[in-house]
């Protein structure tokens, strides 16, 4: 355990923990777009910047991304000093210039008082902030169907060779966790299309409700040793099945005792 000072408060943290995890646990509102607890920190959006100093630094301070900075004893952290807020405003200003139509960025920028960008807006851009959260989550889940391709201005998130990815199973975790809701998927009756690949959705044999994709179910039963029969019916029908089978036992016992 290490103890550090955050905004004048002494806080305990585990060894080797990242600063942002401690801030989140202490319910200190530090904005972050590329952070997700399931994956390793990346430091792409730079919004979680904080001011750090130490008693022995004699008034000098440093500005670090808290998601990538491990805690150490005697650290003095300020999450909302004037300089930090100014840094965040600059980052949000640049985000607004690059993604003028993104509601998520506009909302966050509004919280910090940036309503209009002071830079020239980029025409013909998209809402992807290139934080790599989708690719990191895809890697973490073990599919690695998408990655960032190209460099500089041409950098973007895409499947290999910009074709329908063979490794994708259509779990939609990339789209669900995209901070700017840029990754789109089309959900039609019994099919879902993501990354220009169409997947068939499993339907409940009892009520017809769609669940996960067929490919994802196959992956889970093959690699995680889950009975393929589990995926045949939806969660609601399975609850009903459980109630009926338990009811049979209770009813049998009740009849026996009366």
């Amino acid at each position, binding site marked *: 355990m290490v103890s550090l000072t955050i905004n004048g408060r002494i806080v305990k943290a585990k060894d080797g923990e990242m600063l942002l995890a401690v801030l*989140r646990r202490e319910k200190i509102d530090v904005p972050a777009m590329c952070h*997700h*607890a*399931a994956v390793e920190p990346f430091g792409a959006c730079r919004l979680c910047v904080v001011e750090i100093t130490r008693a022995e630094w004699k008034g000098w301070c440093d500005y670090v991304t808290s998601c990538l900075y491990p805690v150490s004893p005697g650290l003095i952290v300020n999450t909302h000093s004037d300089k930090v807020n100014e840094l965040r405003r600059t980052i949000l200003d640049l985000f607004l210039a690059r993604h003028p139509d993104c509601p998520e960025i506009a909302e966050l920028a509004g919280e910090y008082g940036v309503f209009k960008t002071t830079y020239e807006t980029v025409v013909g851009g998209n809402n992807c902030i290139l934080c790599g959260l989708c690719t990191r*989550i895809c890697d*973490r*889940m*073990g599919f690695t169907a998408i990655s960032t391709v190209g460099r500089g201005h041409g950098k973007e998130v895409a499947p290999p060779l910009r074709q329908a990815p063979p490794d994708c199973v259509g*779990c*939609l*975790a990339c789209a*669900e*966790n995209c901070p700017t809701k840029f990754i789109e998927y089309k959900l039609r009756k019994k099919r879902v299309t993501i990354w220009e690949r169409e997947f068939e959705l*499993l339907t409940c044999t009892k009520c017809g409700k769609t*669940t*996960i994709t067929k490919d*994802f*179910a196959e992956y*889970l039963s093959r690699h*995680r*040793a*889950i*009975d393929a029969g*589990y*995926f045949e019916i*939806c*969660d*609601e*029908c*399975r*609850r*009903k*099945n*459980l*109630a*009926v089978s*338990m*009811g*049979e036992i*209770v*009813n049998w*016992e*009740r009849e*026996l*005792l009366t």
Partner: protein
Amino acid sequence: MSYRFTVSPHLCTGCRTCELACSFMHAVEGKRGATRIHPLETGFKELWVPVVCLQCDDAACVKSCLVDALKRNPETGTIDLDREVCVRCMACVAACPFGCSLLDDQHNLVVKCDLCGGDPACAHFCPTHALEWKPIETVKRKQAV
């Protein structure tokens, strides 16, 4: 002292108080959440079964989770879902053979019973003691009739 959560379906009257207690206990941002316990009709007369997570030993939800968001809590013995880690891939919702890992549509979250962190609200509100939270010494395993 260790406690055990007991469900006695023959005492359940289907009043759904547990559902209400659960939703208010698991409120998100001041709005009530989805209930983790479902008293369901069985098709038999005057017989309801409160369907709730069984905290299986070899749980399909834990096996299906590709990001290790579902873990057994050593203190309470329940399988807890870490909401921060969950990526909402719906694998556990599809994999649970009893349908007790479910999606909260309103908040777009995957939810499951965590026994309220070791003091289930449903047991306190159950008027007929169909749901009980009692010390492990007082729980008698039912003998075969």
